[in-house]
């Protein structure tokens, strides 16, 4: 007799064709069904897919939302980004822990509910927020947190926590979430009317080369943050040798403070999918993948429905819009909690059913990407731009923005301001203008592009948001004058340490050493030489790391050192000769004093 686990796991594997490259889907499905991917399950999966248990284990242990040990039936993941901290994370966490009778990271004694924290879930405009299994709860207060726990104890059904739904498609029966869009400023690229099929029809009326040329002429640069020209990428992929080509959409916006893709996916899914289809036509591809971050699973059913609707309308599938020979379809690949998967080669690894380790480059994905085939990876916003460019023309698009950064940008603004939310604005806008639009209170610093980019002080508030000055993938965080920049830097170091894939030495080990230095300084044990050591180590990590995570992780530290020098210099003091500044004699002898029952005498 087979155990029920065996039958269940085998069913899951069969559903995905016992295909090793679909490992992510398999382990995610097993986790949902059994609350973990146990050693037994890993053996079974390995056998079904013709691989080794340790290979499965390497995948399962990489992603934060998967676990080898059983978790509660309900997992509460409190978002612990800096914005959540500013909005009362600690009180909410304490209230939940007390009500559940556990500490952070534990499961209740009856095995029902696990309480843990997670990195930014894309809800900074309605923080503090949490994921309860897949259900997003927003704007938590200690009171509301206790209520959530009491309700869950009664029914253990996160979907019943949704008592009211947000605006727009958040109210769609397939989404039904409490999330609000908070669209504060509508621009002409993303938030103008869009009729499904209209842009694709224009594309199909032209030869593929002409579509690539349109994108090049528009001078559209990838909206993920690196700003590589999209048209050039497409052209490279189009001409790379390979039996098939792939179009991948990076919907893994994990950069803390970013949430604009969440809104685009909710409100502009058709425009985005249409952009991918146009890309497929342009580069000669018949297949696409949307890599959806695990945090946005609440949008999965809706996005599947959008794809289905488009198949029925002849906008996806075979001979699209009666164009003989143009076939293109899309599958959605779900992630499972790994920031690094926003890096394009890590994202591809994950799609291939591997750990989300970035790959060595070259070769670049345009030559050898998904399953070693030519692949373009663009993000949600970029594909939305593509559709609009086909509708309105390259010249129209290129006329907006700055000379070298054309078009508009969707920004997510959060932090110390009265109007957090999503703003579509032309490139070239200044931080000053944004602060005014968002009604910021007494702003002292801004994090432009999330922690991986730059922290600026008022001296740069009149700069320009574009790839040549203040580059951003979309996150803008505002901090008022009362906030401590170095504490923010320390917080983000913790984030990067947790999210590093661990492949290369400078990032894996260098970041923890940097964090120790920063911690030492923040807590008043630093010496002037530590400031230089922080700079040297930051430079080492940035220059020597293999991928973007390590290359940018020291930025919050450097930003704080450069932008707010007085702050740090005030924290460090010349060490007294003969004393190790980190050594606190009084606290070191506490245990001994307790044992012998008297106070030590020392000078």
């Amino acid at each position, binding site marked *: 007799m087979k155990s029920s686990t065996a039958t269940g796991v085998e069913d899951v594997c069969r559903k995905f064709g016992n295909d090793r490259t679909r490992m992510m889907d398999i382990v995610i499905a097993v986790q949902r069904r059994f609350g973990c991917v146990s050693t037994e399950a890993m053996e079974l999966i390995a056998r079904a897919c013709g691989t080794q248990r340790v290979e499965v284990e390497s995948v399962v242990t990489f992603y934060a939302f998967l676990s080898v040990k059983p978790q509660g039936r309900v997992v509460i993941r409190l978002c612990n980004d800096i914005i959540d901290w500013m909005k009362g994370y600690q009180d909410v966490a304490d209230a939940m822990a007390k009500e559940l009778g556990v500490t952070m990271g534990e499961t209740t004694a009856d095995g029902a509910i696990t309480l843990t924290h997670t990195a930014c879930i894309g809800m900074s405009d309605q923080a503090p927020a949490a994921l309860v299994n897949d259900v997003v709860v927003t704007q938590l207060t200690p009171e509301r947190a206790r209520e959530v726990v009491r309700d869950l104890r009664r029914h253990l059904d996160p979907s019943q926590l949704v008592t009211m739904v947000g605006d727009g498609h958040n109210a769609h029966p397939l989404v039904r979430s409490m999330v609000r869009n908070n669209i504060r400023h509508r621009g002409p690229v993303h938030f103008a009317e869009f009729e499904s099929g209209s842009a694709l029809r224009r594309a199909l009326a032209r030869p593929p080369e002409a579509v690539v040329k349109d994108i090049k002429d528009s001078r559209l640069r990838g909206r993920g943050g690196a700003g590589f020209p999209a048209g050039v990428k497409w052209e490279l992929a189009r001409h790379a040798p390979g039996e098939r080509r792939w179009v991948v959409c990076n919907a893994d916006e994990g950069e803390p403070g970013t949430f604009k893709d969440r809104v685009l996916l909710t409100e502009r899914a058709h425009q985005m999918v249409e952009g991918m289809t146009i890309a497929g036509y342009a580069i000669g591809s018949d297949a696409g993948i949307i890599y959806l971050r695990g945090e946005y699973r609440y949008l999965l059913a809706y996005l599947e429905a959008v794809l289905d609707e488009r198949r029925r309308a002849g906008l996806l599938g075979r001979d699209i819009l009666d164009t003989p020979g143009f076939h293109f379809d899309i599958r959605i690949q779900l992630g499972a909690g790994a920031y690094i998967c926003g890096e394009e080669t890590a994202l591809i690894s994950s799609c291939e059913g591997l750990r989300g380790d970035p790959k060595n480059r070259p070769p670049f994905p345009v030559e050898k990407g998904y399953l070693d085939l030519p692949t373009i990876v663009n993000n949600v916003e970029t594909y939305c731009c593509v559709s609009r460019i086909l509708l309105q023309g390259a010249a129209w698009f290129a006329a907006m923005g700055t000379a070298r950064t054309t078009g508009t940008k969707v920004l997510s603004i959060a932090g110390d301001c009265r109007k957090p939310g999503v703003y579509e604005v032309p490139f070239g806008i200044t931080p000053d203008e944004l602060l005014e639009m968002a009604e910021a209170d007494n702003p002292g610093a801004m994090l432009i592009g999330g922690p991986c980019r730059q922290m600026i002080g008022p001296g740069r508030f009149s700069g320009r948001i574009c790839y040549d000055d203040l580059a951003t993938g979309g996150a803008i965080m505002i901090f008022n004058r009362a906030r401590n920049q170095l504490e923010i830097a320390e917080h983000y170091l913790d984030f990067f340490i947790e999210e590093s894939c661990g492949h290369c*030495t400078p990032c894996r080990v260098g970041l923890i050493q940097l964090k120790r230095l920063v911690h030492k300084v923040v807590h008043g044990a630093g010496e002037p030489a530590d400031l230089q050591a922080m700079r040297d180590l930051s430079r*080492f990590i940035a220059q020597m790391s293999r991928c973007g995570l390590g290359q940018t992780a020291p930025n919050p530290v450097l930003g704080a050192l450069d932008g707010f020098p007085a702050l740090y210099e005030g924290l460090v003091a010349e060490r007294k000769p003969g004393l190790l500044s980190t050594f606190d004699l009084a606290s070191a002898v506490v245990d001994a004093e307790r044992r012998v029952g008297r106070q030590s005498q020392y000078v």
Partner: protein
Amino acid sequence: MQFVLDGKTITATPGQTILKAAEAAGVYIPRLCAYKDLIPHGSCRVCSVRVNGRIQAACVQTVSSGAIVEHDTEELREFRRDVIDLLFVEGNHYCMFCEKSGLCELQALAYRFGITAPKYPLLNPKRDIDMSHPDVYLDHNRCILCGRCVRVSQDLDHKNVFQFVNRGLEKRLQVNGEALAATDLRVTDEVVASCPVGALMKKRVGYAVPVGDRPFDAQPIGADIESGKGGVA
């Protein structure tokens, strides 16, 4: 095809890595995770060089015609030293009692770079030793996560005994089974000899070569390449 290495013009074959091309020309670029002709891992970053201004791993990066490569500069020596230092403090290394001393590539690099004491504070992690296998043991304290064993087991032994699990600082080596004894590892597998440090070791052959007579006791790591006799990796 030609490129420039520290001002010297070097001839290479297309597709060759910078590391191999330099090696063929008698220039030793320090390395740890690179091994024989296996697909490079590019993880230790000891082999970092500047290629047209950008730091790249020489074991991964293939030569391009006319590239300007800087290798023996003050900055890069300093950076490589830091990498070796960080690897030392990440694990638990007690060279003076270690059976691998004099045969260990990490230790030999430290000698070559003149590291006498670590610059960074020790992390002192708590790690296990797997003694379950009759002929081989695995000491995680000394593992530097170079991935040689992962690749050698797969590509040369045609087994799949090792993989990495977890991520970030928690990343560690895992074997395919409860412990080493439960895997199909044999002491004769190439993988056993491939570990650059004292992490994967044969039992009962310790000190067969006395300390003092071991390869890196006699000459620095890389000396064979520099004298034109070909390298270990």
